[in-house]
C-alpha cells in the first residue's frame, strides 16, 4: 500500500470513531462597521507602527509625489510594470526624469543579478488594504511580478484610499478569493524585519528596508 | 477558564473538606476556615472519615489509585449542601477532575453531583457569604500568592485579594510576576527538584522585593514551598493561610 493510502486508511478507520463537526461563528473577525475615515486612520496607524511610511496624495497629483519620494530616497533605478495604470502613469510621468526605469515584465532568469544588485526600488500597485492590521494586499501579475515588491531595498506601493476594507476576513469574503486564487497572493504590512538578535528590531533583513505607501485620494483631498 | 458559576444563596449548613496538607501540617488554618463560616451563621459539618482528595496519585498518572481514594470521599457528603475546601488545588481536583476521573464508571453521576457542590473557601466567603470584615489588627503590608489551581483551574484570581481588601488596616501589595507558579506542583517538586528550587527562589525574591514581611495564600502546598524557602534562608518573611489571617485579624 502506498504511504498515501496507508495514512488515509488509518485516518478513516479512526479507533475512537467519527468526530463531531463543530459550528464556526466568524462574527468576531468581521462586522467592524468602521467609516472610510476610520479605516484609513487605522490602516495608517498600524502600518506606520511597523515602520511603513504613508503619503497621502490627490489622485491627479500622485506621480508628482512619486517623483518627490524617488528624489528624497535617492532612487536612481526603479523597477516597475508596464500595463497596469499605476505603472503606465508612472512611466509617462517619469519619462524625462533622472530616474532610470527598469522593466519588470521580463523573465527573472535574464536579469536576476541586476534585480538583486542594481535596482534601488520597486513600484507596485495594490489591490486594496486592510484597516485592522495595516496590511496591503497584492496579487502579483506578469506585469508586476512577485519579486519587485521583495528584492529591491525600497518598495513603493500605490493604494487607492477607497479600497481599504475592515478586516482580512472581509477581503477574502468580499472578493471571493476562494473562487480563484492567483499563483501568489500577498499581504504586506511594513518593510522586512527581524527581532532575532535579542529581540531588537532591525529592518531590511531580507526584503525591503523601507516601504512607502502612496495613498491616492479621489478629488483634491487631502 | 472555568465557566461562570451560579452561586447559591447562603445555606444553613455546609460540609468542610479539610485536605490532607491542612490536616497534617496546618490544622489551625482549617479550623479558622470553619470559624469564619460559623461566624456567618452557617453550621459546618466535618465528616471524620475524610482523608485526601486523591490529587497526588492523579497528577502522577496513577489514576486507578486516585479513583479509589476519591471514591472513598464521594459518600461523605450525602446531603445537598455545599462542600467547602480551603485549597484551590484540592478544590480544583474535586470540581474539575472528579467528573473526568469517574467518566464511564458507575459513580460518574455521583462524582458530577459532588463536583458541582465544591467551593473553594475564599470563593464561598466572597460570592456566597458576601463576607463583611472588621479589621482589629495592627496596620500591615502583605502580599497575596494565589495558587495556580485557584487562579486558572478554578478561575479565582480575585477572591483572595477581595477578602484582604476588606481589611481596613491591611495594605495589599503585588509582587512582580504575581501569576507565575511558585514551583510546588505536588510531585513536580520531587521529580524536578532543581527546576522547582529555581522557581521558588524567584518567587521568594519577588515577595521579598515588595518589602512586606508576610505573605498570605489560600493553598498550603504553595505555603509549604514558599515559607519553607524563606525559613531555610532565615529570612524574616512569614507565610499564613488566608483563613487564619482573616480570623486572626477580625476575631
Amino acid at each position, binding site marked *: 500500500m*502506498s*504511504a498515501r493510502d496507508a*495514512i488515509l486508511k*488509518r*485516518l478513516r478507520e479512526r479507533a*475512537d470513531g*467519527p468526530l*463531531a463537526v463543530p459550528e464556526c461563528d466568524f462574527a468576531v473577525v468581521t462586522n467592524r462597521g468602521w467609516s472610510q475615515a476610520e479605516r484609513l486612520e487605522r490602516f495608517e496607524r*498600524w502600518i506606520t507602527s511597523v515602520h511603513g511610511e504613508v503619503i497621502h496624495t490627490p489622485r491627479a497629483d500622485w506621480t508628482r509625489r512619486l517623483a518627490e519620494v524617488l528624489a528624497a530616497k535617492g532612487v536612481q533605478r526603479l523597477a516597475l510594470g508596464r500595463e497596469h495604470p499605476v505603472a503606465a502613469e508612472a512611466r509617462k510621468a517619469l519619462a524625462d526624469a533622472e530616474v532610470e526605469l527598469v522593466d519588470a515584465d521580463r*523573465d*527573472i532568469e535574464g536579469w*536576476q543579478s541586476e534585480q*538583486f544588485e542594481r535596482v534601488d526600488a520597486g513600484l507596485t500597485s495594490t489591490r486594496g488594504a486592510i484597516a485592522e492590521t495595516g*496590511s496591503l494586499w497584492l496579487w502579483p501579475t*506578469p506585469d508586476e511580478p*512577485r*519579486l519587485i515588491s521583495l528584492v529591491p531595498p525600497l518598495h513603493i506601493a500605490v493604494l487607492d484610499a477607497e479600497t481599504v476594507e475592515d478586516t482580512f*476576513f472581509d477581503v477574502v469574503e468580499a472578493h471571493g478569493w*476562494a473562487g480563484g486564487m492567483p*499563483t501568489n497572493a*500577498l499581504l504586506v*504590512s*511594513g*518593510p522586512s*524585519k527581524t*527581532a*532575532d*538578535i535579542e*529581540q*531588537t528590531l532591525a529592518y*531590511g*533583513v531580507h*526584503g*525591503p528596508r523601507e516601504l512607502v505607501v502612496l495613498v491616492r485620494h479621489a478629488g483634491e483631498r487631502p | *477558564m472555568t465557566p461562570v458559576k451560579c452561586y447559591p444563596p447562603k445555606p444553613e449548613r455546609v460540609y*468542610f473538606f479539610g485536605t*490532607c496538607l491542612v490536616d497534617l*501540617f496546618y490544622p489551625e488554618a*482549617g479550623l479558622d476556615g*470553619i470559624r469564619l463560616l460559623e461566624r456567618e451563621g452557617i453550621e459546618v459539618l*466535618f465528616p*471524620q472519615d475524610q*482523608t485526601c482528595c486523591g490529587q*497526588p496519585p492523579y*497528577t502522577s*498518572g496513577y489514576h486507578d489509585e486516585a479513583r479509589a481514594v476519591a471514591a*472513598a470521599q464521594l459518600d461523605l457528603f450525602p446531603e445537598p449542601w455545599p462542600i467547602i475546601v480551603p485549597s484551590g488545588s484540592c478544590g480544583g481536583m474535586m470540581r474539575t477532575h472528579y467528573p473526568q476521573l469517574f467518566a464511564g464508571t458507575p459513580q460518574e453521576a455521583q462524582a458530577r453531583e459532588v463536583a458541582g457542590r465544591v467551593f473553594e473557601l475564599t470563593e464561598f466567603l466572597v460570592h456566597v457569604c458576601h463576607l463583611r470584615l472588621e479589621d482589629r489588627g495592627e496596620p500591615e503590608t502583605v502580599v497575596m500568592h494565589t495558587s495556580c489551581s485557584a*487562579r*486558572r483551574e478554578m478561575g479565582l484570581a480575585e477572591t483572595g485579594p477581595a477578602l484582604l481588601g476588606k481589611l481596613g488596616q491591611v495594605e495589599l501589595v503585588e509582587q512582580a510576576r504575581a501569576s507565575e507558579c511558585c*514551583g510546588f*506542583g505536588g510531585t513536580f*517538586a520531587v521529580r*524536578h*527538584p532543581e*527546576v522547582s528550587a529555581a*522557581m*521558588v527562589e524567584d518567587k521568594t525574591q519577588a515577595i521579598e522585593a515588595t518589602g512586606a514581611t508576610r505573605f498570605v495564600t489560600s493553598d498550603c502546598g504553595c505555603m*509549604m514551598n514558599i515559607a*519553607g524557602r524563606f*525559613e531555610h534562608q532565615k529570612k524574616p518573611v512569614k507565610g499564613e493561610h488566608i483563613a487564619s489571617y482573616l480570623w486572626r485579624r477580625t476575631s
Partner: protein
Amino acid sequence: MSAPTHPVQTYSPREFHRQAHDALGNPQIRANFRKAMDGLMAKRRDIFSDWDLETLRELGANIRLRALAKLPDLLERLEANCAANGIRVHWAESGEEACRLIREICEAHDAKSVIKGKSMVSEEMHLNAHLEAAGIEALESDLGEYLVQLNEQTPSHIIMPAIHLNTDEISGILHDKTGTERTRDVDYMTAAARAQLRERFMAADVGISGVNFAVAETGTLCLVENEGNGRMTTTVPPVHIAVTGIEKVVEHLRDVPPLYALLTRSATGQHVTTYFNMISSPRKTGEHDGPREVHLVLVDSGRSNIYQDDELLDTLRCIRCGACMNHCPVYTRVGGHTYGTTYPGPIGSILSPHLMGLEETKDLPTASSLCGACGEVCPVKIPIPDLLVRLRKESVGEGRGNVPGAGVKRAKSEVAAWKAFQWLATHPGVWRGSMAMAGKLKALMPSRLGPWTECRSAPKPAKTTLHALVKRHHATKHDGEER
C-alpha cells in the same frame, strides 16, 4: 563563510535532568530566557487587550477541530486542488521517508545547494543532516535559524530559534564564522547576514519551506513571516518544496484569517506579520518569476496515531505559535535545548512522546508544575495540562496504551508506594491514627527530606490534626469564644 556539516552540540530528552542542571547553572541562559519571555508575555497581553479573546479562541479551536474531524477528506481535497493548480503532492509515513522524497526531488534537479525557510517539521526529521550526507548543502535563511546553524546548534524555540543567544554572543558567532566585525550594532549584523544570504538565494537550486496553513478548498499553502526569507525561498529558486505535517490542513480559505490573527498575536504579540504569503501554484505561462515546480510533502510521522484517540487528538490542533513555552515557568528557567527535542516547552512535552516514544521522552510530561499557564494562553484551547497528565498516566501504564513506550515508567516501588497511599487513604481510621502519630513523633521526623530540603525547610507535622481539632472544637462550641 562555511556552513557546518555536523551539529556538535547535541541534546537528548533522556538527559533532561542533566541539561536542566546545566541550564539552571548558566546565568547567561537564565537571563536571556527571562528577558525574552517577560517581553513576549507583555506584548501578547497588550495586543489582545482590545479583542474579545475568548470568542476568538473559541473560533480558532472550532476551526481546527472541524479540520481534524474531516481530516482524511480534506487531505484528499487538498491533494486534488494542489494537483489541479500544478503543485505535486507527496506523502510520507515517516520523517525518513520524507527526507528521502525531498532528496530525490533535489537529485532529479541535480541540486547541490538548498536554501531553507523556517520549518520545524524539517527540524523534526533532521532534513539538513540527511541532505548534507547526500552531498547537498542545506542553508537556513531565517536569521535566527542561520545564526543557530552557524553556531552548530538546533533552535531553542519554535518561533525564535536563537532566543538563547544575546547580542554579544551573536556578534561573536558572526565574527568567528563569517568574518564580520565584532559589534553590538544590530543593524550592522542584520545587513551582513542579508548580504551573505542574498548570494545564497541567487545560487540555490531548491528552496525548502514549511507551511503554516494548507487550504484544502483552494490548494493554497500559507506562510507567515516577518523577514522575507520565506518569500525569497519560495520565489527565487527554480524549485520549491514545501513540507508539512498532515494536521496543518484547514478546510476553507475563510478559516485562515482567524487562525492567522491568533497565531501572530499569540506568538510574538504582533497584530500581523510583515508578510503573509499564499502560494497556489508554480509559475504559470507568461509569469516572469517564481519556481517552475512546487512540491508539497505531507508527513505523518506518528500524527495519524495521535489521531486515533479522542483525548490525544487535541494535540493536533496546535498552530505552532509558541505561546505555551513563552508562558511556561519551567521553559523560562531551563530554556529550549534542555528538552532535547525539536519542539520544547509544554507543546513539546505533549507532542514529542508521540514522535519519539516515551522511552526517550519519559521525563518531559513530568517537567511541568501543571500551573496551567500554557492551557490558559493556547490560542486553540488545547488542554495542555490535562494532556500532560494523560501522558504521565500512559508512562506508568495506567492509560490506554495508545502512546509508543506506554508503561515505561511503571516501577514496582512506585506502584507499591501509591498502593500503600491508596490503602491508607481508604481506611479513615488508620489515616486519622497515622496523621495523629506523625504529629506526636515529629521529633523523630527527618529534618532532611531529600531534594526538598536542599533549599527549603522541612514542613513540620502539627501536634494535633484537623480531625482532632474539629472534634474538640465541636465539643467546646457552646462554651462561647474559643480564642
